């Protein structure tokens, strides 16, 4: 079973990104469980994990939220590619946090990014996931931890 420290590492990796990148911390909403893949937003940054745990962890955010985030980061380029890079960067930060805290226990892949309508998240069917809403300003994204 996933441990609290492990879940917190992923959550902190995500919220810290907002604090560092936009100087405005994100908070988390009420976490819950979901069987199967939840509906993802416009952009999704994914890391695959193997080793002590198996599965995926991903950050999925709506375009509107990413746009405001980029503005806070003094970026002028709001292109599709920049959005992709941004969620990839969040996934990379989550990955870095996990590497720092779990070391060799976790083998973590390079982040990949999904975008567009109904992208296929590489998740086991029937697998229960932890959904942690990430609230930042008036926007809300999701951190999905789907590990066994």
């Amino acid at each position, binding site marked *: 079973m*996933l441990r609290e420290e492990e879940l917190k590492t992923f959550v902190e990796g995500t919220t810290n990104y907002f604090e560092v990148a936009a100087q405005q911390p994100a908070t988390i909403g*009420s976490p819950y469980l979901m069987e199967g893949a939840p509906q993802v937003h416009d952009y999704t940054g994914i890391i695959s994990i193997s080793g002590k745990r198996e599965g995926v962890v991903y950050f999925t955010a709506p375009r509107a939220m990413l746009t405001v985030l980029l503005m806070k980061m003094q970026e002028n380029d709001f292109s599709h590619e920049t959005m992709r890079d941004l969620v990839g960067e969040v996934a990379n930060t989550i990955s870095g946090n996990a590497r720092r805290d779990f070391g060799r226990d976790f083998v973590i892949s390079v982040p990949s990014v999904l975008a567009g309508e109904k992208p296929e998240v590489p998740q086991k069917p029937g697998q229960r996931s932890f959904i942690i809403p990430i609230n930042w300003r008036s926007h809300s994204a999701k951190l999905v931890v789907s590990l066994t």
Partner: protein
Amino acid sequence: MNVAGADRNRRLITAGAGTALALVMGLALLAGFRLATQIRSSITALQTASELQTYPGVLTQQLTALRQRLETREYTGQAHAELAGTVGRFNGDIRQLATRGKLQSAQLQEAVQMWQAYRPVLAPILAFSGEPYVDTDAGSSLSESGKLYYGNVRQAQLLAKQNVGRLHRLLSAVTRSLEAQTSGAAARLRALLSGGVLAAFVLAAAAAYLQLTRIRHERAAREAQEQTRDILKTVREGFFLLDADYKIGSVWSEALTHIFDRSDFAGLSFEKLLENRVPPNTLATAMKYIKLLWGDRAHENLMKSINPLGQLEISMDNGRGGKETRYLQFDFHRVLGPKGVKHVLCSVSDITSNVLLAKELQEAQENANAQVDMMVGMMHVDPLQLGSFLDTTQTGLQLINAILKEPARTDAEFRKKLGGLFRELHSIKGEASALNLMSIAQRVHRLEDMVSELKKKAELSGNDFLPMVLKLDELLAHLRGVREMATRLTALKDSATSGADAPRSSAAERPGGRSGEDLTPTMQALAEKLGRDHRKAFRLTLSGLANVPAPYVATVKDCLIQMLRNSAVHGIEPCEARRALAKSDVGAVRVDFRRSGDGYELVFEDDGAGISPQALKDAAVRKSIITAEEAASMDTRSAMALIFRPGFSTQEEVTMDAGRGVGMDVVARTVYGLGGKIGVSTNPGRFTRFKIVLPAAEAASSAVA
């Protein structure tokens, strides 16, 4: 013997041998010097003797020549002078030889004596001076002195002729003797020099060996140092030595820096090493133990067995501003010297992963045991009841998850979830307890604890719900396991009874088809369990429960569970108390379900302590549900209604069955939700009776919908 001792001895032996060899060489050189001096002297003597042995012949010739010259009246001055020179050299040389103490020999003595015989004969000759001739008309003739001189020469010539052979042999013998002496000395000198050279070789070889040995030892020492360094760098345990002041020495293994996240160990006291990382009393115990190790009478194995640092929990910075817990294992070994304990060798290992693994294994073991217990428990539960429970629980947990899923950002929004979560959890726990499925009941109880803790928090956020969602996930996984187990048990039971018995009819197939499951076994099981848990003796009488319509089964079950728990905890008194009140030792709880008009009526009654309106009011004030003023102005009816308020409980201590103040409010809410009514009547010290009136089942279905 240790390596250093062996090395010291080897050096001493080598140095001794070298000194002895040098001494031998010195003595040999001294002896050689003396021999050389002796040889030089012998050679001089040999030269003298060699010359000396020619003198008798020369002397004879010179005397003969002098005689002939005198006879032929020739000039004699030169011959005389040559003779005088020869006699002088003979005299000097033979004296020189005779004075050499070591050359004293019979031959030389005899030669000296013979030469002594020459001297009186030769003396007048050598003393002669002047002209031996006189000139006359007839020519030259010998003068008187010349005649005497001639006579002496003639006598000396005769003596010389007579002795020349003997004297020559004697002097030759002396010469040979001297030659032999010289040869002997030279041979000794050669031997001595050979010995010296050999000794020099041996000394050089010894020096070379010593040097090689030293180089080899230095290399071995370097390699040993390098190996020690490699070991200390590679070994995963932290090693260090403690001195008599309990301070760490200057050498330690690199793992120590990783274990303690520091590198300033040299001179650091053991106390400082652990300070602020372990509780003060643990540190004090550790220091006492370390002091004991220095005692001469401390027994190593005994000390090992009482080591208080075998599994030490320490708190470390996690590098992210927080703390993390590590488990360290310290081992101590005393290093003994000639004067007692020299050092204490400490080894420290990070056994965090082992401890966590052991905990996980223990947890797994407990889970396995719980599963076995649950399986045993499940074997006594009707499969239909179990299936119904699992379905209800699954639905309940889905509802809990739905409550969690409701978006929340503010404290109020998060706090709003707690009441709903509590009610659902409490309901699930009640059913699980009723079926004696304690592994589920305990898990739900822990979740309830979490919710209780959250209620006490001043400010709630999403982070506070993370542990809960993890526990919920664990509970769902556990339920899945229980369901699988139930399926297997059912299959097992079916295979055991197949062919022998007809399949059991399900509730839906019972005559009439409208009734749900029979709640009687569940309630009886719950009553037995509650009696055991709370050490209460009571008899439960049930009637009509087999006729509960299917839409009401869950509601009736929830209500009965809650009321039965209330009776067991609050209502039925202990035997002693009942006896004092002239009641039967065994309490009575009666449940009756029957049709009443268009609907149904459920009556629950116990002959316990009843409900005291004042006790209700006091508890409500304590829990800040009402104020003291409100309590004072509250009539009995209103006071009785307090038991249906959320969060109300007269029990201070929270147990599995009561104390959370969630229960009767759930019952009331459910009953009202179905369009029913609930009433309570009591007589303190005598009884408590609940009467629930439910509408017709069809009405209930429409109310739910």
